């Protein structure tokens, strides 16, 4: 039997073991020993917590030896507290008041992470809150990117500024801001092309957009939101670091959390970079955007299905 077949067999077993979750770990009155802790660590890994999983379990193990953590309930409570501690406080996360007029929000991220869809959802949300919203199609690179945004804009009845494919994205940003200024819009949402954080020329292009906005209007962009694909693993941390280094990201949106992926890389992102999470995306339609709630997020991460 090849290595693969063996791995495959093991996998099937694991999945069923996993589905029982933390409760399963302790079932049958199992004692909390090293084996159990090792299994717990693995359970945590499935949520993309990365090396944080190891850190957490090592801490649990220490506290177990000191007699502070005894059984399932202690473990749950302790995990929850540790994870919550890694996230910003509730009042620092979630939705914020956008009071500059107009407030310019630049939305950035790697390819396919969910930027355009998140913009559509945000536009819809702000529009429903009674605010005048303008979207700018600064993705002039990907085929039909502006068309995609325009269809969304039409659906939620907001205005769009767009140019032809290949146009200077900074020029689109400039025009959108100018239009918003003149016509008195409240919020400008700027969609940008996806780019990998390692692509220096494309990161420079982003800096240019940022610079052009700042020159046009003091304080703009007021927010720079990074859209992270919730199914991404440890690479998301690197994305957050390099996007922040380039354009001073002010908040994170985690998209695609409606699947089975847990988006555990978020803990490292908020903890290491001090970035708040503003919203999470939970589907492909307009209303599937929720303000981020740390407790609900931690509970989802710890829930096993």
């Amino acid at each position, binding site marked *: 039997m090849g290595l693969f077949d063996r791995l495959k067999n093991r996998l099937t077993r694991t999945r069923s073991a996993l589905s029982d979750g933390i409760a399963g770990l302790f079932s049958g009155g199992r004692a909390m020993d090293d084996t159990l802790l090792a299994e717990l660590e693995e359970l945590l890994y499935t949520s993309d917590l990365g090396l944080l999983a190891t850190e957490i379990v090592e801490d649990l193990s220490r506290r177990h030896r000191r007699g502070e953590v005894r059984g399932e309930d202690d473990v749950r409570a302790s995990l929850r507290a540790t994870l919550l501690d890694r996230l910003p406080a509730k009042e620092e996360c979630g939705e914020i008041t956008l009071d500059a007029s107009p407030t310019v929000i630049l939305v950035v991220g790697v390819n*396919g992470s969910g930027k355009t869809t998140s913009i559509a959802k945000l536009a819809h949300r702000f529009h429903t809150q009674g605010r005048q919203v303008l979207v700018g199609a600064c993705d002039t690179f990907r085929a039909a990117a502006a068309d995609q945004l325009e269809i969304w804009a039409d659906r939620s009845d907001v205005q769009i500024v767009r140019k032809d494919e290949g146009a200077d994205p900074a020029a689109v940003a400039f025009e959108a801001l100018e239009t918003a200024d003149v016509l008195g819009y409240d919020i400008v949402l700027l969609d940008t092309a996806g780019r990998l954080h390692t692509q220096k020329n494309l990161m420079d292009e982003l800096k240019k957009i940022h610079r052009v906005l700042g020159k046009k209007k003091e304080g703009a962009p007021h927010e720079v939101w990074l859209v992270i694909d919730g199914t991404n693993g*440890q690479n998301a941390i690197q994305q957050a670091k390099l996007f922040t280094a380039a354009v001073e990201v002010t908040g994170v949106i985690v998209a695609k959390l409606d699947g089975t992926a847990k988006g555990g890389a978020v803990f490292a992102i908020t903890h290491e970079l001090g970035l708040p999470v503003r919203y999470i995306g939970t589907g492909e339609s307009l209303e599937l955007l929720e303000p981020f709630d740390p407790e609900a997020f931690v509970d989802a991460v710890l829930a096993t299905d």
Partner: protein
Amino acid sequence: MFESLTQRFSSAFASLQGKKELTDDNIEEGLREVRAALLEADVHFQLAREFVENVRQRVVGQAVVPGVAPTEQFVHAVHAALVELMGPEDSALEVAKSPPTVILMAGLQGAGKTTTTAKLARFLRDKHGRRPLLVAADIKRPAAVEQLTVLGRKLDVPVFHEEGLTAPEVCARGVAQAKARGCDVVLLDTAGRLHIDDELMEELAEIAGRTNPHNQVLVVDAMTGQDAIRSAQVFHDRLNLTGVILTKMDGDARGGAAVSLKAVTGCPILFLGTGEKIEDLDAFHAERMAGRILGMGDVVGLVEEAQEKISETEAQAAYEKMVLGSFTLEDMLAQIRMFRRLGPMKKVLGMLPGMGGLMDQVDVDDRKMNRLEALFTSMTPRERLHPEVLDMSRRRRIARGSGQESSAVNELLKSFKAMKQVMKQMNKMGLGAKLGAKAKKNTLKGLSKDGELAADSGGLLGGLFGGGGPKLPGFGGGAAGGAGSAGPGGLGGLGGLGDMLGGGPRPMGSSATRKSGSKRKQKQKRKKGRKGGGKR
């Protein structure tokens, strides 16, 4: 986070030094590092554990091969096991006996299906003389049809779509259309879907049922985390996957999802998406992928480029210089120039282990290289040939001449000395004799039997940039690398390159798993990619 495995190993393997045998005890720490590296690369935790156990069973009890450091022997075993796991390399698509050949593209939202569909169409047309038809069956995402239409127009490949039909209907008609139009390949671009969305998964099964695709390809984002295993499993259950394509490999994602994909589907990884342009589709190489997942970087890629750009005589001359020990500043300049011909520094560095993410933090722009060169050109030929004459006043003059501080000259001389030292040691160890054809081959396989290429390229850059700015991670370990890791590193790397380039069989072709001809293709592709490089 982005430490290379080789670097981690240099400390983890202290316990291996001087041992006669690999035992459970002395490899324990190394195995832990392997596991951590795999987890950081997003390899599924269960697979990581299985893998580590498998390696343990393989190596425990192995006698240490004379003349090979135990560390190297261990790294070799780890790498080989991972290569085995991800191979065999097989990018052949199934061809229908009676055309058209149907290729179904499936995957999660935003994975890169539409882009990859266009890339495959181009590949099949240009490399295999096929006449493809693209079918736009994503009726969910706004402007998805338009996106494929634009790509088809750019490629001059027909795109089929009909309004008002369901996705399975569009696909079925698309296949019929292909027959009518005399197209011999149909590519079905479907909407992204979550594996837990029963309705959409059912739709996918229906598409497959109505079109009987000869190839069912799962497109997966290389940045995917632990969940890759689940989604792949469900797609595999609902379809009959025949292959996988991993996209967005042009970033710094280590791509551990590839291990999960192989484990779950057993299908070959057909291609890698390496950019947004239609031509950015590369062959999959298990060795490179293994090196990348372990954090060893695309060393093979770097060597390939070097082979194209540096002439053999030049490299041989450089190598002999070093072995003969008559290394001067003149030679150092020549080597720097040789190195620079590989391309812009960012690009060259990006191919080195673990460097991707550091690009922005490390100031390695070409201006810096220009300043470095300016120091050399401000010297007289005599000074370059006899560095010992460089007293303080000469150093000041050189600094002034190049518009820099004297300290820059001092840094340069320091690097030069360190390099010379490394070379002396390499000489003493009889490196020339030691690096036989086998070592060359292994090195090129991406493993670097002795870790020397990885070690030394790191050393080279360390030597060049060690003076200013943050240190680049070095790559200790390995025979020559052992020397390199002692000092601040040096141009030993080009020694390694030089050796490989100088005569002997071209090692790439000797790799057992690679099909003949694929190397050439790969190279041509690389070249093309580079021409358009820089801007996208």
